[in-house]
């Protein structure tokens, strides 16, 4: 349990990001049968979040310290890319007052930033430990 604490934190945060992105803090909804720009940002966050969940799961299941560190780096880079998805890589709607600006983007930024911090610490500790093993 203790040696997988980072992996557990990563999987919980990634699951929160993935599920939250289409439920609690989803972007703007459909209007007159049309999806707005932010819908595609939401889909991208959900997809990347799912990939992070799988990476974090592998990070827990596999035992090799070097592989664990590599997976943690993968989680870190994916988390950083998630931060950049809303409004930088994929445009959001036009007004600050819209749901995608006021709820979706801040929630994604906060959760992905915490995930990046956790996986960053995990990567550094993992690299140091795997270096000592050699």
């Amino acid at each position: 349990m203790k040696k997988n604490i980072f992996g557990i934190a990563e999987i919980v945060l990634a699951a929160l990001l993935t599920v939250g992105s289409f439920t609690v803090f989803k972007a703007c909804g459909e209007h007159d049968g049309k999806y707005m720009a932010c819908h595609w940002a939401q889909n991208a966050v959900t997809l990347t979040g799912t990939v992070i969940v799988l990476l974090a799961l592998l990070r827990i299941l596999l035992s090799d310290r070097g592989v664990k560190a590599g997976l943690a780096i993968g989680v870190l880079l994916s988390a950083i890319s998630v931060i950049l998805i809303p409004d930088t890589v994929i445009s959001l709607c036009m007004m600050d007052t819209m749901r995608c600006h006021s709820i979706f983007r801040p929630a994604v930024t906060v959760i992905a930033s915490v995930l990046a911090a956790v996986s960053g610490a995990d990567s550094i500790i993992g690299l140091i430990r795997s270096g000592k093993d050699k």
Partner: protein
Amino acid sequence: MKLRELPLIDIRRRPLRSTALIVVAAILSAAVFGGQVVIRSLQRGLDSLKQRLGADIIVLPEGAENKVDLENILLQGTPGYFYMDKSAAEEIASIDGVDKLSAQYFLVSANAECCTVQVQIIGFDEQSDITVKPWLKEAYEGSLGKNEIIVGAGLATKVGHSLTLYGVECRAVGKLERTGTGLDTAVYATNETVRGLIKASAEQGIAVLSRQSPEDVVSSVYIKAAEGTDLDELTAAINTEVEGVQAVRTKSMMTETADRLGVISKGIAVFIAAVWVLAVIIMSAVFYLTANERKREFAVLRVMGFSRKKLSRLVLTEALITAGAGAAAGVILTSAAVLPFVNIIEQKTALPLLMPKTSAIVSAGAAVIITVLATGSAAAALSAYRLSHIDTGKILREGC
């Protein structure tokens, strides 16, 4: 073991106590920091609204609903429109005491570009304007041409980019500073552009919300009074001399907002005070109870040659480390929970909210951490005194 590491070792040795102290300090700093940021943002938003309106008196068409509509436009950014005959503006201009006067025309777009969302379009006269241009963040050369617009800070449209309104490509040539008001999501254009938009909407068969031209009507008139003019008298004069209009002092329009702000600020202040008192009581109690448990430990340290001053310093250092860790955690967590969500807080409270500058937020955070450190030290001071003045011989002989 280095003596310098003793406080850290003690903290690690009592994880439950240390965690409890860190959590109490974190709650205290989160309450003080969060409260401070919200109060300052509300105050800044109200000041910004006062300055943003830039007029002493606002004249609207008669009817209470029009005043409510204007408040909704200003505070919540809910698009709205109302009209009065343009001759009213001319009549107002002839009244003594009116120094500058600027009329605006409100139009609501059916939708804009990608997003099915209404945009408040405000037509204004560049020559007489007193409320829009002073807020230009990114200035443009010359004057506004046809299909050129100035956008509020709350719109994603950048200077040089276009915004499609009723199928007309309108080029953004200027952007206004953020004000924390509903006007941040408005689009400003000349009356000529507004006329073009109305025509375009008719050609496209889009049900435009207004079919009255800015040639015949205006929505509001902003007045700057001449120096030395009694504003109440001028307001009364407009109300009696011009038919079908209501003049309101800008100050009175904001009274209700200021009152709500006052209530919220007082509520937050009471909450902060309550948390503070509780935190001091809890921290003092924890340090006091711990002091009883640690008498033997301190007696041994005293026998080993620790001076009273060193023992006091040991207790205070432990208090500073736990309070500092908690305070930093509280500030960081509050920053993550409050700062990114300022837009939704603004919408839910329906109050103008303008975040303080980053430097002000950082200094507020630093001040909170120092305050929590001082609180932690004060709470530990009594225990530090007791533990440094124990009767070593009695404790080692009798065990208490």
